C-alpha cells in the first residue's frame, strides 16, 4: 500500500519536528499518523497494558487511543503541554475507562476456570515483559513510599484520588510523593 510506504519513508528520516508532525496530522495526513504510531505505540501500549492487564483488551484500547488522537488532534494545544503527555493521558483515560466498563466486569464474572488460568498466564507474561524492561529495577531505587505511589499510578492504573481514597492517604501527600518520586526517577534516568 502506497500510504504505508510513504509512512516508512518518513519513519526512516528518524525525527520530524513535532510542530510539523502536528500540522500534518491536522491536515489528515495518514503518513503522519503512521510515523506517530511507530514512535509512540510502544510507550502507549505498555501504559495501557499495565492498566487493563489483558493483551486483547489492551490492543483494542490502543486502537481506540490512536483513533482518538487522529480525531482530536486539532484540539491539542502545545502551550498546555507536550504532545506525548496529551497522548499519554488519552491512553490512560481510555484504559481506565475500559477497566471500569460493564463489558470488562461482565467478562470477569463469566470467566470460567480455564479462562481464569489463561488470564493469569497472560497477566504473568505481561508482567514479566514489564520486568525485563527494567522499570521494576528502576523502581527499587526509589524510597518505599515513593515506590508505592509510582507502582500504583504507573503499574496498577490507579488515579491519584483513587489511591488517596483506597489507602486513606491525604491527596496532598500523594501529590507531593508523586513529585518526589518523579524527581528521583529523573535523577536515576539522568534527566536534568
Amino acid at each position: 500500500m502506497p500510504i504505508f510506504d510513504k509512512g516508512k519513508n518518513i519513519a526512516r528520516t528518524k525525527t520530524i519536528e513535532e510542530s510539523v508532525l502536528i500540522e500534518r496530522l491536522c491536515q489528515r495526513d495518514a503518513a503522519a499518523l503512521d510515523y506517530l504510531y511507530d514512535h509512540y505505540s510502544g510507550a502507549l501500549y505498555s501504559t495501557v497494558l499495565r492498566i487493563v492487564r489483558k493483551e486483547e483488551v489492551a490492543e483494542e484500547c490502543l486502537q481506540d487511543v490512536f483513533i482518538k488522537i487522529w480525531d482530536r488532534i486539532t484540539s491539542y494545544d502545545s502551550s498546555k503541554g507536550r504532545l506525548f503527555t496529551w497522548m499519554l493521558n488519552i491512553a490512560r483515560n481510555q484504559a481506565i475507562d475500559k477497566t471500569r466498563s460493564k463489558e470488562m466486569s461482565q467478562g470477569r464474572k463469566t470467566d470460567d476456570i480455564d479462562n481464569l488460568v489463561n488470564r493469569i498466564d497472560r497477566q504473568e507474561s505481561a508482567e514479566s515483559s514489564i520486568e525485563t524492561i527494567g522499570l521494576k529495577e528502576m523502581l527499587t531505587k526509589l524510597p518505599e513510599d515513593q515506590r508505592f505511589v509510582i507502582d500504583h499510578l504507573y503499574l496498577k492504573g490507579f488515579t491519584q484520588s483513587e489511591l488517596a481514597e483506597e489507602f486513606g492517604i491525604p491527596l496532598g501527600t500523594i501529590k507531593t510523593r508523586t513529585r518526589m518520586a518523579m524527581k528521583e526517577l529523573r535523577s536515576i534516568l539522568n534527566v536534568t
Partner: protein
Amino acid sequence: MNIQEYISSGILESYALGEVTEAERASVEQALKKYPEIREELQKVEETLEIVASATAIQPAAHVKEKIMSTIKTAKPEAKIISLTGEQPFWKYATAASIAIALFSSYMAFQYRQLWKADSTELAQIKSENQRMAEDYNVVNQKLDKIQGDLSVMESIAFTKVVMKGTANDTNALASVYWNSSTQEVFLSIQQLKAISKDNQFQLWAIVNGKPVDAGVFDLNFAGLQKMKNINGAVAFAVTIEPRGGKENPTMETMQVIGSVATNPS
C-alpha cells in the same frame, strides 16, 4: 505567588497525569503563561513521564497498526466531505451548536441565578440580623451608660438627696431629688406618682427665697434619674400637676409631693 511552593505541591505532576480539577487546570495554564520557571518545570516532569514510558515500552502486535490505519483510511473521506461540501452543513452544525450553547447557558444562568438568589437572601438575613444585634447592643450600652451615670449621681457626696413625700392629694406618693448645691444640677427620681391625663404634666418646683421657681416638667416615662433645670439656693422641692408644658406659677391645690432640703447637708 510563591513559585517554589507551587511547584513542590506536586500540582504540575498531577496536571501532567491529567488528574486536576477544572479550576486547578485553569490555574496551571495561567501559571504556565506567566512564569517561565513553571514552564520549565512542567517540561521536566513531562520528559520524565515520556522517558519512563519509553523505557518500559512494549511493542504491540502488528495487526493493531493495520487495523488503525485502515480505520482512519475509511474514516478519511467522510471527514473530507464535511470540510469540502462547505457552507450548508457547517452552518447547520454551527446553528445547532449555538442553539445548544444558548440553551445550556440559559439553563446554567438560571441555575446560578437560583443559587445566587438563595445566597443573597441568606446574606440579607444575616445582614439584618447583624444590624438588629448592633442596635440591641447600642440600646444596652446606652442603658448601661445611663445606669452608670445615675449611680455616680446617687453615690456622689456632692449631691444632696431630698425626699419628697406625698401630700393630702396622694399620701402614697413619693419622689426624690438629687441636688448639687455647688454645680446647681438637679436630678429627679420617681418612686410613686399616680398616672395623670395626657393633657397634663408634672412640674417640679424649687423653693428659693420663699418663692417657687420652675425646675422643669416631666412625664412618668423614664427610669432611674431624670435631669431637671439647674437650681441655685433651694430650701425645698415640690411637684404639682399642671397643664401640659407647665405654668409660671404652681397650682398649689394639685401638689403631689413636697420635701425640704436638710439644713445641715452631709
